[in-house]
């Protein structure tokens, strides 16, 4: 089964006819990491508004948690100072831990919600936390997936074409 799966990111890069939709940062609260919850019109007929807003709100909460100045950040700072920052070589910062959680969350969201709708949510960290990008998968990409897999789940090109037509 694993062979049937494909690295969507690789496929994404190879797909030439995909559309990207971007959700920009929300700077109304300053430089804290927040993304706009405004629903992009391009996704109007691809996904329900509530789902997308839910995802963005969850991401925002993750970032708030990552950037929170509190006990854990104090300790981290003191420890770093005390060890002349050598601790950074051994330990992962709190922010990095939250980022791992975020990427796991995005992966899960992609699998459950966005991939079935032909969308792909990319981690904002890949773009310097400036945007949340949605890759709207094109029909071409779908076809390529099918052809690559070639096994049970994949249908021949013709059927993928038809499914493409119906999907679209």
């Amino acid at each position, binding site marked *: 089964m694993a062979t049937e799966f494909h690295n969507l990111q690789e496929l994404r890069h190879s797909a030439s006819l995909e559309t990207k*939709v971007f959700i920009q940062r929300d700077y109304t609260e300053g430089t804290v990491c927040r993304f706009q919850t405004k629903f992009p019109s391009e996704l109007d*007929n691809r996904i329900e508004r509530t789902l997308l807003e839910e995802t963005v709100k969850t991401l925002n909460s993750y970032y708030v948690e990552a950037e929170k100045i509190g006990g854990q950040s104090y300790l981290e700072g003191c420890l770093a100072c005390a060890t002349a920052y050598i601790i950074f070589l051994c330990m992962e910062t709190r922010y990095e831990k939250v980022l791992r959680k975020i990427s796991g969350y995005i992966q899960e969201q992609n699998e459950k919600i966005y991939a079935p709708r032909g969308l792909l949510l990319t981690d904002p960290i890949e773009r310097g936390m400036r945007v949340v990008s949605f890759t709207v998968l094109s029909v071409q990409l779908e076809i390529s997936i099918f052809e690559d897999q070639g096994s049970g789940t994949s249908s021949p090109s013709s059927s993928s074409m038809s499914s493409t037509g119906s999907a679209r």
Partner: protein
Amino acid sequence: MPASSADSLKPSAFIPVCTAASLLVGSTSLFFVFTCPWLAVTICPAVPPCCAILFLFVLANFTMATFMDAGVLPVAKGDEDKDDDFRAPLYKNVHVKGVQVRMKWCTSCHFYRPPRCSHCSVCDHCVEDFDHHCPWVNNCIGRRNYRYFFLFLLSLTFHMISVFTFGLIYILHYRDDLWKLHCTVTLVVISISGLFLIPVLGLTGFHLYLVSRGRTTNEQVTGKFQGGRNPFTRGCCDNLEYLVCSPISPKYTARPYKKTVIHVQPPFLRPVIDRQIPVKRTSTGAVEPSDIKQVKTPPPLPPKPDHGLLKHKLAAMNEMGHHTKSINPVSIPTVPQLRPVLEAISRGSSPIPPEQLLKMSEQQGNNKGPDLCSEFKESPVGGSEQGGLSVQPSLQTNSSLQLNSMTLNSRSLTLKQGIISSSIRVASHSSSKFSYDSIINTVDPQFLAQRGPPQASYRFMTLSTDGTVVQRPPPHTYNPVFRGANRQPPQPSLQGLTSRDPSSSFQGFSQRDHSPPFPRLMPRDLASQSITSQDLTPPVLARRDMTCQSVRDSLRDLGPQGLTPHMSAAACYDNFSKTMMASVHKRQEMEERDRMLHLQARSQMLYGPDVGIYDIPSRRSLPPDNIQPPACRGPTPPAYGSREFLMSTGIHGYGTRTSPLSSSSTLSLTRGPKTSSSPLQSSSSSLQGKDRPSSPTYHPSERQPQLLLSSTSTLPRIPSSSTSYTPPMPPIPLQSDPRSHSPLRGRTLGALK
């Protein structure tokens, strides 16, 4: 910019940091060697360890400040940049806690710099919360390493103060033995530390002030928040707390890329939304979102002439059969781009230099529809073609304005580009008067194609245009457009455009959309299509339909008030003064003649290679030679109502068969209310002469011109500055063109050839 990016790597860039490091390490080492033993003995044994810890702290912070990523924002990939850079606004405003902050577009990094972000010219990258580029550490100081820099400054200050103080105590104790080695060394150390203490102290105090105010060096130096409120400050204490205790933000660049594996399989779920518009039906995939956005954008009225664009398109048209990708997908509809032409015409100046027009007219024969078609095809990222194929059924089934989101995307692009290209072509042929004639001409077939029968006629027209110059009668006005479309397939639009005021043509366009003559034109198209439909291959048809659709959609977009696509473009120009329209109307006849001449010439040229394809209908008469003005810009355009005329009309719009898109787009554009072609034809016929003999198929169209004439006469004419290409056009001679005369046809064909 390799030069600037290498600035931080240049050998000279390392001098300050090496100097600072050597001074720091060297001086402190000497201090520890020569002074500290006495201090440990005399003052306190804890002095050297404390100094050592402090020095270690200095070194650690110095190292972090030097080698830590300041918060470099990675360069944006191209996909973020939807608009062309030159069209994107330089600044974007955001409100940060109630204060308006400007985000500037970074041309190097291709994104709008977030607030407090700045581009470091030394390192050639954007840095988040950019403070400054410190030469002493040869690194940018930004969000991630500002803390270390500040602590370095702080600790260095203390270290230097301690070294200076203890050294002074030592010297004062050994002032009698100042020339001994240990004293000399200590003297040197305290002089160095004393000397550099002053600037370091100043810098530390400065940054303490900045931190308390919540500003960066960059903001302080540029005076951003001098007068106003700083939205980024959290208060003095919170700022210090944020400085010291905030979590380290992650590195954005060179991150370990974790590959995610997600299985994507159609069919895709869709939200349950009542969709009137079929979406995503083209093979180009989900193009519609961005395209819809493009489509929905109301056409801004462009204030400035777009000569570059016109020239660009002219150049593109000059390439025969080249798929000129010069036409970039424009989010602004054609109307804005034509506006400069309109303005120029209204001013009485030719937007397109006559020499260009001359050149264009000469190349008419070479510039078949393929130019337009290729442009059409190329402009929409190849998607329109595919989309067209899928669109074709929709076109056939839909009535007028069925909006396919996919087709919208590609179509709008196609249409706009097609319009532009057709307009340019027309303008090139005419005396540089850029008018909607070309647009209308090009659009006509598309609109025709939108309906079942119209599609046939559209095809016919496109087919006829194959191998012929894509010359649609310059749709300067309502009448001329149709006139040209009807009668002068190969007539260079130059003729018609020369004396036409684009605005009037636009207006005519709009009027045409509303006018009854549109339907009247249909019969003729239908007649023609019956003949030619068999000639076209399905792919061509598909492409043309696509073009038609795209043109239609583009036109739709053009309408600011949400008029029908074909009307929308004209609606923008309804505001042109009636005087303009009147003047345009006046020139119609003159330009008619010119146009016919050009059309004829072009059709002859274009027909040459493909004459066989069009040699089916019997009424392929071209306008008589007498139409040709003495200036003789080209062969006489085909007779009104003749097949050649219709074909040439298609030629104007679409170029060769390779440009079905353009043809279809033009058809759709002119069609608007599904009658675009008919008014076009009828107007042209009316202008050129109602008594044009034509085959029975064209008779209805003959009647239409009369109606159109009345409608066109209502169009105010803009006193267009006639160019040298605008010989007086005798309507009568045009009318007398034996469209259906075989001899004439042969002659015309021969002339064309």
